């Protein structure tokens, strides 16, 4: 079964590129454009990994991450944070909250795929043949 990725990002052209690339390597992709929609989606159907932009509207990425990592049911969900603000203190903050990976914009598609592959490989019980090809 294909691993599921939830993308929380409000820039449509970034969503389009990421969706294309991740689907191409075998992931099932869902995308939302704001923080509140992300939490709703997570509660409705938990993905295997989430890509989370920090600067999304309604509820920003910091807050979404805090609620995910503070929720017993969601705390184990690997989260890759995307940020245009690459400053050290933002990175430290998201790592303190519990982000599993941090990528700054502009990013390389290859880096995203490698990170997602790595994070999905960390899921307990995930067999090597279940991981999508890069």
């Amino acid at each position: 079964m294909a691993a599921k990725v939830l993308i929380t990002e409000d820039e449509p052209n970034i969503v389009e590129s990421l969706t294309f690339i991740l689907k191409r390597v075998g992931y099932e992709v869902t995308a939302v454009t704001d923080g509140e929609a992300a939490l709703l989606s997570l509660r409705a159907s938990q993905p295997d990994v989430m890509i989370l932009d920090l600067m999304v509207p309604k509820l920003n990425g910091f807050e979404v991450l805090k609620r995910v990592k503070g929720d017993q049911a969601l705390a184990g969900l690997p989260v890759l944070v995307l940020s245009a603000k690459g400053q050290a203190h933002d990175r430290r903050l998201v790592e303190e909250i519990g982000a599993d990976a941090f990528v700054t914009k502009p990013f390389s598609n290859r880096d995203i795929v490698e990170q997602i592959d790595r994070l999905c490989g960390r899921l307990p019980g995930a067999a090597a043949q279940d991981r999508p090809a890069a």
Partner: protein
Amino acid sequence: MQQERSKAGGQRAAIGFKIRQQRHLAGLTQRALAERVGISPAYLNLIENNKRNIGGRLLRRIADELRSPIELFDDATGRRLVHDLIDVGSDALFEGLALTPEAAAGLAGQYPQWARAVVRLHRGYRDRNEAVTALSDRLSQDPFLGESIHGVLTHVAALRSASEILESIDELEAADRARFLGIVDAESARLAEISQALAGFFDRERTATRSITPADEVDDFLQEHDNYFPRLERAAAEIRGAAGFAAVPSASRLIRYLQDHHGVRVTLADALDEGAADPHARSFYDAPGRHMALVATAAPATRRFELGRLAARLACGEQIAAELAGSPLLRSPAAQRRAERALQAYVAGALLLPYEEFIAAARATRYDIDHLCLRFDASFEQVCHRLLTLKKPGDEGVRFGFMRSDPAGYVTKRFPLPYMPLPRYGNVCPLWAVYRAFQTPGVIVRELAEFPDRRRYFFIARAIGKPLPSYAAARQSVSLMLVCESLHADQLVYGDGLQLSTAAPAAAVGPTCRLCVRRDCASRQENPIIAA
């Protein structure tokens, strides 16, 4: 003690060096000059090395023997140059170099042009430092810049991601290729827009790189004239004569004068138009329309003053221009405009508080400012400013200095006394009454202060709140301080009940912490730049 004497030597003008210079030009030996003026050569030597004060009759005798005008030896410009050099020497940049006030006096006395060059260079350095700091702050905190940078990174991310797909996947279907090419096109266009907006932002926000602020230039100009302009006093008297004003013209009389003599219509407005250049102004004059709008919520004394300022602008343009013409101290157009407004305010003060009546009332009340406010229907600050101008030869009042500070300690106006300079940069001594006044708003705070050079001054300060136009308006307050030499304190009503003799206790203050040599001051805020 030695250091205090040195400080005093520095703060005195470099008179001794000038005397030596002129003596050499006159071809006289020390012995010859000393004999002619009736002092010993040893004493003259001390004077020429700035180790002794000189003034009054002895200085006049020396000036006469050297056939030089006395202003050559003891002029306000020279004193200011020494003070400015001492200010320069207090900069942390020169820490450890022991730039003493005596050396400043020597440089100013012997090489005044080089001294001016040093002062000018330092001002330029400070202005550039402030500009860089301001720019740095803007770069890190400006919301437009923050949003723009975020936008750039986001659009570049979309561009890069789409480009990578196009570049790395050979077997891309035509529809997908077209889609991602469209993304590249769209994101490139948005990136171009943001780039242009950023370029425009930096063009508009270019920081001034002048070496001296217009406010500094105007301060220097006013001090050069000792804040007394006889031509403008006469001009104000002419307006009074032409208008038939009684001693204290009312607002309605001023409005009638403007209507009858200048065809100006005056109306009250709740607020100035949104397009007004200065939203905090209390009036606006539409010259083509000959219409003046006065803000109705301004205090009555302020409205009268605005009317007086307009009268000055319309009736005394030529006289004001003549004062400004050719002044080497007003180098920038901004400084000239600022000086023009300052002189219009001067004429307004002379119009509303006429010299003879005002000085008579000041002497009669022993400079009771509250009484003068009621007598002339003027504000506290307007009376303070008029007190600074009582310099008419043969009819001078007590000589005052003045400063105005906001609660953060930022000095917004300054007019120093000849031997008690007000530092141009940074805060003044925290023990000055101007700051204590904020603790008791509305109450006059009196202080007999002694500086490290043993000079004593009398401070009179009051913190006042500006009238609020509405309940929701933010409260603003300033502290105003007049200062005079302690010798004159007994002429003031504020000296009553205080011990003013030279032996009386006085607050031990300094000019500013960086220049102050008092080691035991509990209020010290930073280390002195001058080593002990």
